[in-house]
């Protein structure tokens, strides 16, 4: 590896941090979901980096599973967003309190 794996892991950590800020700060559910996709991708980058550093395939397998879970999560999350928008016109997750006990 020409580029040391630490650089990749650092890049992954930076992306993860940006995604965390997005999830916490933004109130638009669509952008929150996209920030979650950023988190998934950052984790995947770390997995693939270590797979390459150790020449081990399991990292690739796990990244593949993460991609699958991310697809399922995006589908369900967007369905929930669509249903929520049908009921209320606000683009704000703070207003969605239907599940509050």
């Amino acid at each position: 590896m020409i580029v040391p794996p630490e650089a990749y892991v650092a890049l992954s950590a930076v992306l993860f941090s940006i995604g965390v800020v997005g999830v916490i700060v933004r109130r638009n559910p669509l952008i929150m979901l996209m920030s979650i996709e950023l988190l998934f991708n950052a984790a995947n980058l770390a997995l693939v980096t270590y797979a390459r550093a150790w020449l081990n395939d399991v990292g690739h397998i796990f990244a593949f599973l993460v991609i699958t879970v991310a697809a399922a999560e995006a589908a369900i999350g967007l369905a929930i967003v669509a249903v929520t928008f049908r009921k209320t016109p606000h683009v704000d997750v703070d207003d969605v309190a239907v599940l509050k006990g």
Partner: protein
Amino acid sequence: MIAFAILALVMVASAIFTVTARRPVHSVVGLLANFVALAIIYLSLQAEFLAVMQIVVYSGAILILFVFVIALLSSGVAPFDIGPDRAKGVLAPAILFALLILGGVIATVLRSPVAVVVGNPGPTGTPQVFGSVADFGIALFNDNLLPFEATAFILLVAVIGVVLIAGDVGPAGVITRRPRKRPGDREPIVKEPAAR
């Protein structure tokens, strides 16, 4: 090294743009740049199959799903961007938290450097080398068959869940028909705001 620097710059910039963009469509464009750059980084890590999957699944399927939902929601009556866009008073704690994560990861990596296995994984593109489709398939279907099957189950659950949530089928399997409309009139997706 230069390629990695450029790609890292593109990824960080597009990620920041995704998080800070005011309109969700702009966020989708930023996310697209991020995904494509990540696919190229996967290629540099000899994860060919994952690079292709990144393009097909993320840039293809998931982003199109986002675009569809945005188009569907903003085709209603009301303008799309209403209400406060950011949670009040959490920006500084959120950045602090993120910097904590960042510092923790980088400090850990610096303290114990990653031991790279010395070995030539072979030229990219030939079969049976690390990260190729053949190698990935053998690893997936021999040693990791159970996680693969669990993946199928997860997708099945997701499909059923989406149909239950967004479809017209009620919780007990009862099909709740909507009242028939005449073909001319079109129901606005965004209705009048309810009284708080």
